[in-house]
């Protein structure tokens, strides 16, 4: 037998995230593209990335709430709407950057035409 226990134990200290700690990587691996196609039972999941984002938000909010001693997350169904707000902020930023570039380009053309 070539592959015994040493396969997951690393002899040297390694600077990488331990497997059990890395949730996004784990979900990416164990969720089969969101749809379970083996087995007798088929479960349609949401998009894996969406699930993972919600999970991250959940963990973040649990931590925050624990520190503050509150438990609003248990009743708040809007964990994902917060994600939507974040997305909006990001999109806003991207659009501003594009606008900036486009304005520059437009003025450049005008300048060249003169």
């Amino acid at each position: 037998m070539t592959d015994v226990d040493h396969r997951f134990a690393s002899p040297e200290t390694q600077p990488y995230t331990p497997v059990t700690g890395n949730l996004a990587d784990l979900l990416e691996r164990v969720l089969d593209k969101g749809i379970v196609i083996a087995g007798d039972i088929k479960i349609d999941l949401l998009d894996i990335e969406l699930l993972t984002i919600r999970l991250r938000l959940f963990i973040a909010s649990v931590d925050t709430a624990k520190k503050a001693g509150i438990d609003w997350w248990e009743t708040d169904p809007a964990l994902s709407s917060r994600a939507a707000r974040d997305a909006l902020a990001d999109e806003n930023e991207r659009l501003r950057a594009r606008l900036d570039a486009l304005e520059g380009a437009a003025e450049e053309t005008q300048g060249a035409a003169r």
Partner: protein
Amino acid sequence: MNAPPAGPAAPVLVCAFAVTRTPPELAASAAATGHEEGGPLRVLRAGGLCLVVQDVPAALFDEEALAERLNRPDDLERCARAHHRGVEAAARRGPVVPLPMATLYRGDRSAEQAVAAREAVLGALLDRLRGRTEWAVKVHAAGGTANATAAGAPADSGTGAGARGRAYLSRASARRRDRQDAHGRALAEADAVDAELRRYAVDATRHRPQSERLTGRRTPQLINAAYLVEESDSAAFKHALARLTADGRHAAVEVSASGPWIPYSFARWDEAPDIMAPDTTGPSRTEPSRTEPHSTAPERTPPHRTEQRPMKQEARS
């Protein structure tokens, strides 16, 4: 635990974790319990293969209950970790083909049949994964600012609105050029990182790059890769990783990694629709004659490509 007790009368489903060739000693790993709501891990025999399973209460694991539970973040996390524990327990004594999370069968018989019907495919996968582990590597564009040039914009072009306008647009276009240059550099360096790591890997595959919403970074994820690494090469792979993350040779990107993983990303046994059918046509279908353009070790050419990035995929209709 507030789960209903899985008494002898409660209806159960069979949750499968992984396929192995050597039966794992589950008694020795009492700590590895799989799903906490279920019974102990068991081993089913199917042809020459073993399937590590667990009875789980149907009330929590049927379509409806599970779909609802997996959409709840805390249950999703517990479920994913439980699945990983079950797979790890199965992997103690040899290679495994890990199954996707929540692979559920109505009974032992249908689970055994499903494995027996794919014995050739699964056997080939086990051979391919033997003694190999997976590394997850993500390459992001570096967060550094593109604040270079621009400062040297012409200051001598007179006064007034026209000059201010010209100065503005020369700054704007310099900024734009910087951004494009930086992105081009980052992409090139990401490819160089990938090429370097492939030298130590038997195979590589890509997951969809994660969005900035998920990574929480302000810079895009350029590569979300998995590498299948031979045990004997894993030290070299790790050293290559350490070099890539440390030495500033690739200043335009940031490389992060996790591993070693059980090779989940290289164990997609139901991926091709034609493999779904019971295997009656012999081994030819498990050994596509496709050659490996990237492989640096042709003698190790694996039977399956799991490349998931469309642009790298060969035409396959």
